[in-house]
Structure formats: structure tokens, C-alpha cells
């Protein structure tokens, strides 16, 4: 076969769809999409997306790896589940969007300064410290790292005070906060899961 032929075969070899199927949660469903467009039309935030789900699926099948994984689109999903409910093929679109976002993040390809990605990281770090989410710390972190800092904090001052009075929030939590019963065990479990995940990722790379 001529070089030109081999080059063209390489060019159109759809390794990205295989990659998505192996690494993205529910990724094996991507090939089931029949491009009817009901998901895109049903998305309440649809006009905020560069590429609606239907287009993302087509891009995956067309092998546009860089464009898909560095896209802002799947980070816009708010999990309203309109698309899943209406999809004529019962494709779990919401889950695939989160799976794609997660995979892009693992590869470090997510758009920089993407607020949803930043918040997800804050949430994770917060959870890892004590094995439970410290809502007060997460809120404050959110104000300063994603929001407008003090300005955002002051805006929510009254709500905070009311929650304190109603005993829905304890200001002392800000200094450390309480942990789950077996913090060591929790952290070990997560560490083990991370090792397994890393091994799986490494295996697919090879």
C-alpha cells in the first residue's frame, strides 16, 4: 500500500472513540447516538454550550480528541436530566457529560479557569481532609477562589447569620471541623482506589 493510503488510514482510524469507550463513564453508549438532536434541543443551558451533546458525540466519532477534551461544553451540564428522559435511544447523556469532564480533568486537558472544574477540585480537596464536606470552609473557599472574594462573602452575610441562629451552621467548624469516625480507613480506601484508577489509565496508555 502506498504511503498516502497508509497515511489516510491512520488519519481516519478512530482511536478516540475506543479511548472514550475505555476511559469515560458510560462511554460505550456514544456509538448509539442517532443524531436526532433531542438532547441538544432539550438542554435548558443549551445556548451556553459551544458544542451541544449531539455535536460532542459526532466529534468523538470523528476523532476530534483535542477539541472535545479541551472543550468547555460538558462542564456546563447541570444534571437536569432532560436529555436522558427524552433521548429516544435511552443514551445516558448526563452521565457521559460528567464522564467526559472527569476524563479531561484527569488528563489535565480541561480549559484553564473553568469555574465548574475549579469548584469540583475545591469540593474534592475539602472532602479528602476530614472524610466529609465542611460546608462552611467550602463556601468561603468558593467566595475567594471562584467568586469575588470579600464582596461575595458580604452579600451572603445575612443568610450565614440566620443559619447560625437556626443552628444550621457552626462557625467553629471553620477551625478544622470534625471528621468521619475512621478517617485513616477512609483515606486508605481512597488511596487504594486512586492506585487502581492510575493503573487502569496506565494500562490503556500502553
Amino acid at each position, binding site marked *: 500500500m502506498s504511503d498516502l493510503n497508509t497515511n489516510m488510514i491512520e488519519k481516519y482510524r478512530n482511536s478516540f472513540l475506543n479511548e472514550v469507550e475505555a476511559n469515560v463513564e458510560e462511554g460505550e453508549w456514544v456509538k448509539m447516538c442517532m443524531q*436526532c*438532536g433531542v438532547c441538544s*434541543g432539550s438542554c435548558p443551558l*443549551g445556548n451556553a454550550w459551544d458544542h451541544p451533546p449531539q*455535536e460532542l458525540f459526532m466529534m468523538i466519532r470523528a476523532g476530534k480528541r483535542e477539541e472535545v477534551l479541551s472543550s468547555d461544553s460538558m462542564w456546563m451540564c447541570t444534571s437536569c436530566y432532560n436529555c436522558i*428522559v427524552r433521548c429516544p435511544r435511552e443514551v445516558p447523556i448526563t452521565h457521559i457529560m460528567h464522564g467526559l469532564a472527569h476524563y479531561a480533568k484527569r488528563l489535565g486537558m480541561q480549559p484553564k479557569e473553568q469555574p465548574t472544574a475549579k469548584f469540583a477540585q475545591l469540593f474534592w480537596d475539602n472532602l479528602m481532609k476530614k472524610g466529609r464536606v465542611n460546608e462552611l470552609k467550602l463556601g468561603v473557599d468558593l467566595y475567594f477562589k471562584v467568586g469575588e472574594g470579600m464582596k461575595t462573602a458580604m452579600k451572603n452575610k445575612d443568610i450565614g447569620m440566620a443559619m447560625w441562629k437556626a443552628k444550621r451552621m457552626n462557625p467553629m467548624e471553620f477551625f478544622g471541623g470534625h471528621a468521619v469516625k475512621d478517617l485513616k480507613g477512609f483515606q486508605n480506601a481512597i488511596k487504594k482506589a486512586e492506585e487502581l484508577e492510575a493503573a487502569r489509565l496506565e494500562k490503556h496508555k500502553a
Partner: protein
Amino acid sequence: MTEVVATNETILVVGGGISGMTAAIEAAETGKRVVLVEKRPYLGGRVSQFYKYFPKMCFPTCGLEINQRRTKMNPNITVLTMAEVTSLEGEAGNYNATITLSPRYINENCTGCGDCAKVVEAEFDNEYDYGMSKRKGAYLPHVMAHPMRYVLDPAIIGTEEADKAKAACKVDAVDLDMQEEEVKFNCGAVIWATGWQPYDADKIQPYGHDRFDNVLSNVEFERMCDPKGPTGGKIVRPSDGKEAKNIAFIQCAGSRDRNHLYHCSRICCMATLKQTNYVTDALGDDADVTIYYIDIRSIDRFEDFYKKVQENDNVKFVKSKVASVTQDSDGNPVCNGVDTEGYNRYAQAHDLVILATGMEPSVDADKFPVDIVVNREGFIEADEKNGGIFAAGVASEALDVNRAVQHATGAALRAIQVVNRVASTEA
């Protein structure tokens, strides 16, 4: 009392639509005795409710009428209308059938003069027009109903209205004492031709058929386009009666959708292309038709029909399944979605939106009076376990009229083989 002469060499045909009639006629014309059972008061089924057939755009009054005449002229066929099979027992070559006949309250004396309908005032939703018009309590189901006999609605029995109808009849055809009756007879083979019903458009929640006046299903639109239909053939908006020019069709409304019908109903693409012709014929260059589709399935020779519609500048095809229909402040239905050719977001207002709803079997899988093998969609399988029971037409799968008739002929042949075996063992 209704008497039916039947033996183990008789073929029972359940359903008097185009498939059932065809199967009955084909078997009877080879000399077999046939009992044709129909639930409605007349033969012809769903086909009688069409304005025109595709692809030749001729009227069912033509093809259907020939079959009605063949049914009427053939002494081998016994027709039972307003009748349902309530029990069926036995095996191939020896079935016992029980048929329940609902009272029509009009006997064979009826000449179809219509004097009874003139005096009766009570009105009911007309099922022939899918409830889009009213009919009297004494009525002829439609202008070419066969048998050409009036029917009294059971709701007026025991009221003054029924007495008025009886008094008006000059030929003593009104029999108010008619009762439900049961008929039992033997038969050797059964052809099941119970056909289809349109998928309930109200169930497709995002399209708002249950909420918006100007969203119709394709079977309702078919009646609207018929000069004998509820609007006299005028294409109007049900909300305000204004002429509708900007008309949208939504394909695969309920079909090929795991939330509704798993199968492709096969006929809806052609039905929409046919109905597009009604619009462009009626409005000429004023017509503004948009067809929203996933893919157009105009199989084999119907491709020409599709091409002709595509060439019409007044018809636009948008490759997209509409995500939802909303209503604007002027009562216009608005189609919302994203198209697949460019991923452009649209919110397009129309005068009228037609949902191309598909076919589902008219009998629920668990409602058959006998054990029968059906597939996931509820259509009858060609399975040896069904013994001497054979499906004809849309009872077996979603088919257009042409293919249903061919299928019915095949079913007739299978039934004939069973009764021939009976005949050779009895001889």
C-alpha cells in the same frame, strides 16, 4: 337470532379492515367458507378514514369499494359487524369460536334513508373523525359504510330519542328490543387481522398534543383534509378557525423511541409526504411546509414521491427531531430544537404542527382471547405455536396498505392449507 353455518373447514377472519377483507375474499373466492368478524358497525377499518392513498393519491372510495362489493357478492362470506371474538379454543383444524354481537338496534330492513337521524337530536363525539366532529345518536358511520345501515347509539336506548327514531322509520327497521347475543361455531383456521391504532399523541409529553389546540396528530389532519371531514376539507387552526398556511410536520413522533414505540412505523414518512401534497394542492404557492425529520424512510419506489416533494420550493426539510413544542402569545405552536446540519438552535413558530404518530397493534398482547405469540412491540409472530392462527396485515407488523394486502393474501393461503388438510382427512 343470528345463525352462522360453519364447520371445521370454515375460516374465521377477525377484523374487517383492508387486510381482513382481502384475506376473507381471497379465501372465499377459492371456494372456502369464511366468517368475517368486525368490531365496528361497518367494514373498511382505518382505510375508510383516509382521504387519499399514497403513492398514487387515489381515493379509498375506489379500492375499498371494489372489495366491499366482492364481499357482498360472494355467498361464501358471512359478515358479522359490531362483533368481537370473546373466546377461542381448540387447535389447528378444530377451533370453537364464541362471538359476542353488540346490538345495532337497526335490522336488515334499513334502506339508509336517514329519517331516524333527522329526528334524533342527541349528539356524540364522532369516532370516525377522531372526535373532531359530532354525530347524531342515530347515525350512518360514514357515507360509504358497508353494510349501508344506520346505527343507534346505545346511550339513547330507553330515552325519548330512541322512540322518536322508531316513529320516524317508515320501513320498520328500528328494533329497540335487540339484545347482545352470543354466537358459537366451529372453524378450522383463524386469520387475525385486527390491525392498528394510532399511537396516543398525548403520551408524547414534550409535544403538547394534550395542551395545545394547534398541535394535531397525522390521523386527525387526514380527517381535516378530507372534504367529507369535520372542516369540509379546509385546512384551519382548531384554536381560532383561521386558515393555516405555515404547517410543520414532526416525524418519528413516538416511533423509534424507547420511551414510546420501539419500532419504526414505516408509514409515517410517506403519510407526511402525502399530507404535504394535500397542503400544496390546496394552497399552491401560499403553502409553507416544514418537515422535521431524523431520516426520511420512503422505501424503494416511493423514493420518486419523496424527490417530487423535495423539488417543491414551498416545502422545507429540517434534519432534526424537535425537542419540544411550546406556544407563543398568539397561540402559534413553536418548534424548539437544534438541527443536525450545522447544530443551529431554532425556535420556529407555525400555524399548525402535525405529529406524524406511528402505528401500534390495536389489541394489547394480554387481551387476546387465546394464547398467541407476539413480539416485543406486540405484533403477532409467525410461530408454529400459534397453530392454525395466522396474522394478516398490520396485526403482524407496521405496514402500508399495499404491503398489508399482500400479507393478507399470504395469510389466506396459509389458512386454506389448514382447512384443506381437514377436508382430506374427513373425506
